């Protein structure tokens, strides 16, 4: 489903974010990406949705070499990928409902489908009461859950989640992880970066560890810290 070969990414100012990264992620896999702050987790996710381009190396997503993708096809790529951004990236002038609905409008779903699915998904993340709140009228955790709802409302092939529980309390986090697990079981490949060791340790899924841009560990049914 996802394949990277010798991918390098250096930001301006000689900041190496990823170095010679190669990895294969199969369909329906659930992968945790861990690593200290600034180790390149978000960069990896940005490369997968072509928000950034690698300096060298090739990336395949859903069977397509995204380096070869013409720019008008990029939206099609992104519609197959749901993405929870670390900084949420909600549309500030849309309510929670509208933010989630937007992901469906983008792929041309008819209004009656939208009216049916969005409330369902908002209910799943526990935000039914906040549906008409704008992002700046919600708590951090609520915004994060809107972002999660938006990412999977259109049942993407791949779900990328960049620290989706950073602003959630442990019990809400557990709920969200159950949700992600359920989504994964219905056939969606999930790649999730996280700092939450208890989540990684209880889920026991494949763990990929980055350190200063280098893949230092790739462990099936792994734990958060190698010393844990």
């Amino acid at each position: 489903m996802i394949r990277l070969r010798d991918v390098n990414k250096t930001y301006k100012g000689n900041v190496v974010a990823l170095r010679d990264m190669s990895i294969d992620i199969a369909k329906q896999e659930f992968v945790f990406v861990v690593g200290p702050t600034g180790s390149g987790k978000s960069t990896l996710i940005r490369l997968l949705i072509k928000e950034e381009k690698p300096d060298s190396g090739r990336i395949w997503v859903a069977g397509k070499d995204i380096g070869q993708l013409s720019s008008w096809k990029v939206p099609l790529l992104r519609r197959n990928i749901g993405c929870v951004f670390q900084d949420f990236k909600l549309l500030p002038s849309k309510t929670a409902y509208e933010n989630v609905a937007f992901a469906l409008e983008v792929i041309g779903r008819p209004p009656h489908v939208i009216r049916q699915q969005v409330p369902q998904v908002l209910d799943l993340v526990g935000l039914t009461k906040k549906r008409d709140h704008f992002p700046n009228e919600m708590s951090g955790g609520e915004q994060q859950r809107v972002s999660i709802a938006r990412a999977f409302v259109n049942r993407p092939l791949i779900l990328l989640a960049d620290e989706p529980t950073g602003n959630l309390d442990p019990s809400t986090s557990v709920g969200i992880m159950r949700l992600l697990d359920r989504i994964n079981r219905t056939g969606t490949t999930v790649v999730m970066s996280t700092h939450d060791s208890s989540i990684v340790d209880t889920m026991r899924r494949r763990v990929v560890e980055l350190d200063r841009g280098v893949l230092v560990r790739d462990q099936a049914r792994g734990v958060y810290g190698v010393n844990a």
Partner: protein
Amino acid sequence: MAVNLEYVFRETVSNLKRNVSMASAALLTVAVSLTLVGGALLVKKGVERATVQWRGNVELSIFMKADASQPESEAIDRQLKSMPEVKDYRYVSKPEAFEEFKKIFANEPDVRESLTVEQIPPSYRVVPREAEQTKIVGERFENTAGVFRVSYAKEEVDALVSVTNFLQIMLWGIAAVLLAAASLLILNTIRMAIFARRREVAVMKLVGATNWFIRIPFMLEGLLQGLVGAALAFGVVWIGRDLVQDRVAGARNDIQLFKQFLVTGPDVMTTGFVLLGVGVFVGTIGSALAVRRFLDV
């Protein structure tokens, strides 16, 4: 490009509502700058009308010999009637011409008393269709039998033609400059308004929106701003014209000259359509161009 119409309208309306501050700023720019354009266009129209009147009053006089025969006179009459360049003409008989002469020299009895009716030549007063044709018309008669002399206040005619031509060009120039300035200002404002929402555009792209999906609501928004702004400008211009018109109508006679500047209802309507066209065009295309910069994500 298959974009849901319902989505587009809902999106546009909510964008306008939720970005009221920026949207109204753009609207204001459209309104103010198109008001200037509209004002210039109306003044241009007014001067055009006045010019037509001024030029319409240009005459040439064909003085007949005092002893010109009836057939000679009739020949000239016939020729004048047949010339397409001649808008109007009339015959001034000897007694009429003498009356005129006496009026001109009313205060100078010495001069007035020195001539008799018989000495004053009769003449044809000819109004050409175009001021520029005065000379052409005149020259035709210069060597005709029975004609004593063709007199066209040559200098005055030339001056009038070149002055009005110059005025027209100048006013075209002013209108063009104002139009260019207005377009620039509107584009600039739209660019600012969209710049302020560039992050939003980037997020939309990251969520999988195509360029057209993002662009169309922005364009519709620009279209509406252009339309409403132009309508406001039109309203201001209309009211402005009425105010000026009232003032001029109520003024003393001695600025009668300016009455010729007056513009008609249809003139104002035409100007209105120009404004709406410019507003809509610049608003729509400007939005499309402005948003373009932020679509490469």
